[in-house]
C-alpha cells in the first residue's frame, strides 16, 4: 500500500470485511437451497454443507508469521465433511437404499439461520465502521473549510 491507499486503509479494510460476509451469506443461501438434495448430479450422494472460512490478508503478500499489518479478510468456501448425513427412513424415495433409508444433506436449517443472522450483523458492523471512517474524514474536511 502506498500514498492514498494507506490513508484510506480503514475504508478498504471494512470493505474486505463486507465482501467476506457477503461470501458467507452466499454460502448459507446455497446450504439452505440444497438442504433437500439427496443426490448430486455427479452421483456422489447427498449435498455436503459448505462453510465460509475467514482468512486474514497480509499486506504486500507477506508471510503469515511476519509482523506486517493485515490488509483485510477473505472468505474461503470449504466443504464440511465431518458432520454426518441425516438418515431418514423413507422406502418410497427414489434414492432410498435396500433398507429404505435415505441420506439427507448434513444441513441443519436452524444452524444456518443462526449463522445468517450472525453474518448479517457482522456485515452491519463493518458498514458502521466504514460509515464512521467517512464521517471522520468529512468532519476533518469541514474543519479545513
Amino acid at each position, binding site marked *: 500500500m502506498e500514498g492514498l491507499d494507506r490513508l484510506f486503509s480503514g475504508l478498504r479494510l471494512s*470493505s474486505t470485511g463486507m465482501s467476506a460476509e457477503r461470501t458467507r451469506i452466499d454460502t448459507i443461501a446455497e446450504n439452505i437451497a440444497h438442504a433437500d438434495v439427496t443426490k448430486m448430479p455427479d452421483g456422489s450422494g447427498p449435498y455436503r454443507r459448505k462453510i465460509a472460512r475467514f482468512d486474514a490478508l497480509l499486506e504486500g503478500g507477506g508471510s503469515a508469521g511476519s509482523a506486517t499489518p493485515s490488509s483485510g479478510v477473505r472468505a474461503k468456501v470449504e466443504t464440511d465433511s465431518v458432520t454426518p448425513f441425516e438418515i431418514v427412513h423413507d422406502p418410497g424415495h427414489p434414492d432410498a437404499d435396500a433398507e429404505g433409508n435415505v441420506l439427507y444433506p448434513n444441513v441443519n436449517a436452524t444452524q444456518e439461520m443462526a449463522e445468517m443472522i450472525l453474518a448479517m450483523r457482522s456485515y452491519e458492523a*463493518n458498514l458502521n465502521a466504514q460509515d464512521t471512517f467517512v464521517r471522520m474524514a468529512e468532519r476533518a*474536511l469541514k474543519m*479545513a473549510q
Partner: protein
Amino acid sequence: MVDRIGTGTPSTSLARAAIEAALKRQAEATRSMGEIAQPGATRTEGPDFTRSLAETVKTVDTEVRKADALVEQVVAGQVNDFSEVAAQLKQSELSLRFALEVRNKFIDAYREVMRMGV
C-alpha cells in the same frame, strides 16, 4: 526644559534606545525582503512546491480514474462486489474534495496577497 524632559530621566532615554533599535531592525528586515524579491537572487532550497502539487493532482486523478473504471465494470456486469465499488467511489470522492479544499486555500492566499496595498 524640553531637553531636560527628553534626556533627563533614565527611563525615557532607555525607551528611545529601544525605539531606535526596533527601527533599525525594521529597516534591515525591509532591506533583506527587497533582496529576496530581486530577480536572480539565490532561492532557498527546499521541496519543490510546484512539483509536489503536480504529483498530488496526479494521485487524485488516478483515484478518480480508478473509480471511473470500476463504474464501467459495474455497467458491463463484471463486478460482483458492491462494497469494493462503494469504498473506491468514496475514496476518490474524499480525496478529490480534500484536493479541492487545498486548492481553494491557495487561491484565497493568492487573492489576499494581490489585495495587499503597496
